[in-house]
């Protein structure tokens, strides 16, 4: 295993080891997702069969995922700054490996939230998905974009004051294109339509955010 991959893997393993002992992000994300899900489900009821459902419910699903992510992912770098462990990391970790290790941790958190939220949401609102494969692909590609953009913005705000507000203000404009494409693709998955060009556009969004993150991260992380 190359040393770069070993570094990223060490950061990923360290973050999960700390997380499993403190359960900070898991509890925050999980409770937020579940609470929102229950409220939405009780408010809307089993409306999956109504004509409006395929248009509205995909947007509701992605709003739940977005707010669950923004509740937990800023901690990725903020915790390192607040507990002063960032100094030791700056002196030891290769910036790109650090970013990828943190991104991998964020990705697994998002994946866990998607795995918890999506099936429950579909069951509670009784929404039928005609193309489950497209839904899984959309959740995977959209989740990756959500995690990458959140990790990048978490780096930006880590050393600032008013982190939570700044995180939301900076993150939402970056995520608007992703959310529009992800909602459109989820609608297509529900209706059983072919993915078309939207899937490629979502992949291009992910690629752009990844390249931008890897280019910007070293300058943002180091003085």
């Amino acid at each position: 295993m190359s040393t770069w991959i070993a570094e990223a893997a060490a950061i990923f393993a360290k973050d999960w080891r700390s997380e499993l002992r403190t359960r900070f992000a898991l509890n925050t994300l999980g409770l937020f997702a579940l609470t929102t899900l229950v409220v939405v489900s009780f408010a809307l009821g089993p409306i999956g069969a109504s004509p409006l459902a395929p248009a509205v419910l995909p947007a509701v699903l992605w709003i739940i995922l977005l707010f669950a992510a923004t509740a937990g992912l800023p901690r990725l770098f903020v915790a390192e700054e607040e507990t002063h462990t960032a100094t030791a990391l700056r002196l030891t970790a290769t910036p790109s490996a650090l970013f990828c290790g943190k991104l991998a941790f964020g990705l697994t958190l998002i994946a866990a939230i998607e795995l918890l939220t999506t099936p429950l949401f579909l069951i509670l609102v009784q929404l039928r998905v005609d193309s489950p494969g497209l839904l899984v692909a959309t959740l995977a590609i959209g989740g990756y974009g959500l995690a990458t953009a959140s990790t990048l913005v978490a780096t930006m705000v880590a050393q600032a004051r008013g982190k939570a507000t700044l995180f939301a203000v900076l993150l939402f404009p970056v995520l608007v294109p992703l959310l529009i494409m992800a909602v459109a693709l989820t609608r297509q998955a529900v209706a059983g339509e072919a993915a078309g060009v939207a899937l490629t556009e979502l992949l291009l969004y992910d690629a752009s955010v990844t390249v931008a993150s890897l280019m910007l991260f070293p300058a943002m992380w180091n003085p």
Partner: protein
Amino acid sequence: MNPPPTRLRFAGLHRRFGKLAVLAGVSGEAVSGQVLLVTGANGSGKSTLLRCLAGLLAPDAGEIELAEEGRPVAAGERRFRVGYLAPDLAFYEALTTLENLRFFARLRRVDPARAAALLDRVGLPHDRAAGALSSGMLQRLRWCWAVLHRPAVLLADEPFQNLDDPGCRVARELLDEQLERGLAVVANPAHLQLPRVASHVDLDR
């Protein structure tokens, strides 16, 4: 004549925080086997100087040169070559002392077995969470972290604070070993009785 294995030289360092000028034209130099002692009152800029030397803070003006075997080390690489020990250095509180050091050993590409050996050397338990360490034990862990990768340059900011007599003894042994392989810059409010102090930067002047 062969160049010294390691040479650290800084000249005309300036650093401001807003309107406050913390460093104003600070210069110094040390080579392998030597200690450069930095003294000054609280707030005189000792920690800022060490953070600049470590590459954690960019000076507003001035030069910092680290050379190994006569070859200059790139500014971006400097942070990976130094050992840094400072009061604000913290560890992952949910992880044990051994898990913390092993994690950084993997990042430093050092044999993880050295982590356990260093903990034994300074008398720290392997299985105590970093968040449950006393201030003296935390200082011992900082020493382990700083010399984990056998750095050529040790930047030590108040390295003996909170240590009891046995802790001070082992810290001085580690400092002696550091001077066998490289140099050390030691910052302290008062003048310490240290071996091989070759130069002195007094930030109160």
